[in-house]
């Protein structure tokens, strides 16, 4: 079963921490990614640029509108994701809990629709 783990945290936190701390968290992310890859649970994962780089696109009456910023202004922003493959939600929660930034922000775990 595939689950998308959406990683939310306060992006100003990352902008304001010292470089050494940032590097150490990044190292934790690399180690985590390697671990779930080795366990065969990793499908994909990316780190996103901050929300100030986001553009929201809509089509209304056939016309495209593109506006600056994320779809929703929230205290914690979507900063990255992992797409994982685990037997059930119990296991998915275990994996999500090991994502390093779960300690600061939160991880939304969403089952993926299976069309097969």
């Amino acid at each position, binding site marked *: 079963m595939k689950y998308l783990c959406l990683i939310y945290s306060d992006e100003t936190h990352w902008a304001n921490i010292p470089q050494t701390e940032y590097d150490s968290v990044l190292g934790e992310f690399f180690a985590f990614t390697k671990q779930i890859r080795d366990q065969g649970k990793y499908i994909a994962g990316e780190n996103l640029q901050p929300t100030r780089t986001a553009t929201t696109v809509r089509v209304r009456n056939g016309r495209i509108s593109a506006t600056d910023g994320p779809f929703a202004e929230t205290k914690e922003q979507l900063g990255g994701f992992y797409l994982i493959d685990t*037997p059930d939600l119990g296991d998915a929660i275990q994996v999500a809990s090991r994502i390093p930034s779960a300690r600061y922000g939160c991880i939304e775990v969403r089952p993926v629709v299976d069309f097969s």
Partner: protein
Amino acid sequence: MTLDPVEHTFRAESRRVLATLIRLLGDFDLAEEALQEAFAAAVERWPSEGLPANPRAWLVSTGRFKAIDSLRRRARFDASLGRVAEQLGEAVTPAPEVEDDDVEDDRLRLIFTCCHPALTPDAQIALTLREVCGLTTEEIARAFLSPTPTLAQRIVRAKAKIKAARIPYQVPARPDLPERLASVLHVVYLVFNEGYSASSGSSLTRHDLSSEAIRLGRLLVELLPEPEAMGLLALMLLHESRREARTAVDGELVLLDEQDRSTWNREQIAEGVGLVDRAMRSRQFGPYTIQAAIAALHAQAPTAADTDWSEIVGLYDVLLRADPTPVVELNRAAAIAMRDGPEVGLRLIDELLARGELEEYQLAHSARAELCRRVGQTGEAIKSYRRALMLTRQEPQKRFIERRLKELSGGLTPA
């Protein structure tokens, strides 16, 4: 009077059979349908063929067979169901042996799944009462004073989430057990409180919730004898033992120190005290056990004045370390007031209220009012009772505070 054997078996076994069918079929709705079909077959066949040697195993395998059969029939319209039916048929052919251990594990799996933290607390409660206790949706709705469609939708959504997110049908592994058990115990205690705090008009149906919670507590202690499960069962029994005494004939609330202790249920007290002892001896107890130990001291005191307040304050100190919340601090302050006098307690409660967290908590203002009354600060007592009255929604509580207010302002009026 003898109960019809099918009905007798249904009462005794339906929840067990359901729990096992959910595991075998991997689907709540399919399992419920299968359960109904299995009992329908029993009604038809047992009277003529006689009771099977193992009715439980008979019901499980009949239910499983009926479910696969029904999926195959429906597969004519929906090919994907055919695949499911084949998988189920293959995975468990020949019919699985139904061992008693498996069945007990299935009951625990069902409880832990219904109380999974990925479901909202409301959904956990509704699903547990429906699936584990076997209450009908109408019964649950009546007990929670909610419209039946709301409750029905809550249950449907919870089951849909279990399926869509694939919440595992498992007893959690040891490292996760304390936290997951805490979530189960919380659900049981919410059900109990819903029944216990109820009064007046609907008290009959809501009383059933307390009995249902105690039944669930017993089941948990039987299946998983963890100290906190015992502690919770003890706490519920000790509260329940005072049910009669806490309501006067006219439906009014009677406080602990004014209750007629001869009406307390001695059997429940004895059972509760025994469970507290067992849980305490494990040295791995938590907040429920400590609260039960406090309730046990109250239950064993021959009169309110004979209560061992020093011991109770000591237990509140322990509880405060395990569960550091302002509500526990408030209860501790009330116990200190009993041990060291109302002035001391009042000072603590004033400090607590000054911190603001309990500003909206009715019992904090009632407790302050009561202590002010005892030290003769009538004006302050009236002020606090009025604040408490604004915050309370339960009718008997309201009437109690109104009665106190009348007594106090009566004292102020010149004769």
